[in-house]
């Protein structure tokens, strides 16, 4: 099984092809990952983002990893549809999103296990501040006949400020029995217990909140090799705190 966001991924780190978009993410993008190849799609957004729809078709024994560091300052609907069309196909999706101001951000990262013996992990982490609202509503679909598939949807949101909110609704649509499917969702304020633990060591409330937030968003950085992008993510996280 693929590892959660803050753990090292089990997926091979060498990809046949890497595509990176910083800020200028195209709408209507369609990517084909041919048989026995792999694709890494790195997305980072720091400015204003509009609605986007991306489709990825993954062939036999192929891998797709999508990573999105979203620190954009606008409202939008982001939709990702990954079709695992060939046996042995893999998909790993990692999202970290910081939502601020009065932005309403909707993420729908979905995967369809068209072929049997495919696996996918869709992992979404978010923080909402001010009066913003974040929605994670991905669908993992396993049609009839797609046996021996493994799929997991994770959606976690920390609601930071009293006027902000979030909805995490990872959906599984399963039409066959012989599959391993799971989903997890959590939306909540910063844990009082966690804050108390950190404060009891002398860390101020503000610093404790900063440390917890860093822990939530910073792991996305590990998927980027480019130091200038890492630096921008660091800056965006610090700015958001």
């Amino acid at each position: 099984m693929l590892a959660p966001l803050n753990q090292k991924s089990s997926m091979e780190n060498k990809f046949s092809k890497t595509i990176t978009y910083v800020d200028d993410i195209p709408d209507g993008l369609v990517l084909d990952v041919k048989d026995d190849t792999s694709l890494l799609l790195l997305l980072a957004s720091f400015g204003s983002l509009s609605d986007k729809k991306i489709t990825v078709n993954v062939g036999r024994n192929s891998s797709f990893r999508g990573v999105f560091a979203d620190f954009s300052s606008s409202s939008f609907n982001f939709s990702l549809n990954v079709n695992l069309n060939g046996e042995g196909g893999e998909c790993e999706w990692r999202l970290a999103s910081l939502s601020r101001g009065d932005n309403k951000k909707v993420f729908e990262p979905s995967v369809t296990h068209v072929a049997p013996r495919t696996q996918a992990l869709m992992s979404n982490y978010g923080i909402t501040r001010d009066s913003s609202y974040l929605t994670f509503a991905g669908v993992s679909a396993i049609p009839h006949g797609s046996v021996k598939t493994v799929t997991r949807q994770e959606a976690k949101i920390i609601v930071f400020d009293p006027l902000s909110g979030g909805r995490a609704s990872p959906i599984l649509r399963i039409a066959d029995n012989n599959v391993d499917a799971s989903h997890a969702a959590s939306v909540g304020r910063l844990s009082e217990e966690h804050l108390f633990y950190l404060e009891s060591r002398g860390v101020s409330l503000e610093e404790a909140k900063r440390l917890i937030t860093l822990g939530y968003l910073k792991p996305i950085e590990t998927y980027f090799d480019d130091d200038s992008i890492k630096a921008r993510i660091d800056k965006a996280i610090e700015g958001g705190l």
Partner: protein
Amino acid sequence: MSTLSIKNLYVSVKGTPILRGVNLEIKEGETLALLGPNGHGKSTLLAAIMGNPSYTVTGGSITLDGTDVLSLSVDKRSKEGLFLAMQYPSEIPGLNSADFLKSAMNAHREKPMKLFEFYNSLQNAYAEMQIPFEMSKRNLNEGFSGGEKKRNEMLQMLLLEPKIAMLDEIDSGLDVDAMQIVAEAIRKQQAKGTGFLVISHYARLYDMIHPTRSAVLINGKIAVTGGPDIIERIDKNGYEWIHDEYGIDIEKEIDAPMNTVSIGACATKSKIVNGK
């Protein structure tokens, strides 16, 4: 010499009174064994001293060298020299242990530590607690075994060097070897003059750290105080003799109300904005 002084302390949890007039004093250099049946308020006392927001102080006072502890935020209590090793240390997802320890150590100093000095201290503390230094790169307490968490608590105590350290069942989940390591860390701090308030259900830890005094908390009050001989007596005979000798009826476990649990749609969570 530092003195933690607790006078006529009343504490409630979700409206249920747990502590009902606790009087206790711990001085730097002393080790006080805090005993008592389950559910009578031992952990509540330690949590209230440290300022856990789930516990409401409804009466009485806590002072450290004359400073009103109850008026201080939790982090300031730590900076004043109080430390609580928790029974169930929190796992903090994504928070690197070393980053956290650096923040905690710097919070206790006027000027941030130099990186070299910090790593030196860190390496020494990990070596003393016999925790592989590699674990400093892991997320705080995440995936740690029960014993590793407890040793990690003591590691923090060594790094922060408190005036008064409170240990809440630090020996639970420890094997014999780990118990020796933890006891050695306590003895080291005892030699430096740190005062200890120690809760344990087992005489074994107390045998290793030699408390100077004992206090027994029953029905939310200190029922008996005395020397370390009380530990042995309770270890052998339980608490019934307190009823026989002092005429105190030991109430059954004081139950704090449980958290309200609600079960919603499967794996769908939403936060209602602004209470609506």
